[in-house]
């Protein structure tokens, strides 16, 4: 007889969310989490926060580069163009 996995509590469920979104949970844990989420609004809200955080991360623009650094690197490029052997 196969032993049934014990149901998750919220404290355990939150520790599985990132792996769930990465699709790296075992089938057993995925089923347990989905079963928990189906009955838990608070953990569903947590999952939504995690999804929104990841989506927003993907929209983060690069840190501003100070003009001096940029100019220095472009200058390096110019020098190379003039004397490619250097």
């Amino acid at each position, binding site marked *: 007889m196969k032993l049934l996995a014990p149901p998750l*509590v*919220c*404290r*355990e469920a*939150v*520790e599985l*969310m*990132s*792996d769930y979104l*990465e699709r*790296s949970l075992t089938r057993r844990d995925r089923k347990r989490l989905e079963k928990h989420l189906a009955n838990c*609004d*608070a*953990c569903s*809200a*947590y999952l*939504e*926060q*995690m999804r*929104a*955080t*990841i989506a*927003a*991360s*993907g*929209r*983060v*623009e*690069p*840190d501003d*580069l100070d003009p001096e*650094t*940029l100019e*220095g*690197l*472009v200058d*390096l*490029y*110019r020098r*190379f*163009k003039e004397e490619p052997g250097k």
Partner: protein
Amino acid sequence: MDDAELLERLLGGDESAFAELVRRYHPTLLKVARYYVTSQASAEDVAQDTWVAVVRGVERFEGRSAFKTWLLRICANRARTNAVKEHRIIPADPTPREPTVASQRFDEGGVWTDPPVPFSDVVEFRNDSAALVAAVREAILTLGEPQQAVVTLRDVEGLSTEEVASLLGLSEGNVRVILHRGRARVRAIVEATTKGTGT
């Protein structure tokens, strides 16, 4: 303009294409380098050397991987070499294994007593999606290493777990653990800004 177009223009000798690639990727190069080396100055050297290698080697770039992957790989290899010279030891998994949500938010049975609110229901984020992006950006900058490097490469730059693992010399399992903790930390910081209660 996407990277492939910029690369095409760079091959044609377009200086502004080079400047745009620098603007786009220099901060990420610094993050990858900083993960390996001991100081910001050393990271800046690595990032600069990476651009020199790009200018010298761009004609040999065969396009078998994305430009971004190629660029970051050059940077990681150089940073690794410098880390060896600096005798820096990079811990495989220095992330502490503590719960990612404060225990006082649950009752004794592990059920939420202070449940989260979806970010789509938070007024300041609902009315202005740029506000959430700004909050997330700030939160990522507060992360220590290796979380900042992992979250930046996986979630900001969109690299695969496999690519992140290879760039940072970690196992994919370790990347997932660090990612989990980094994301949870970012989520918690953003949530705290919305209601003034940290997790």
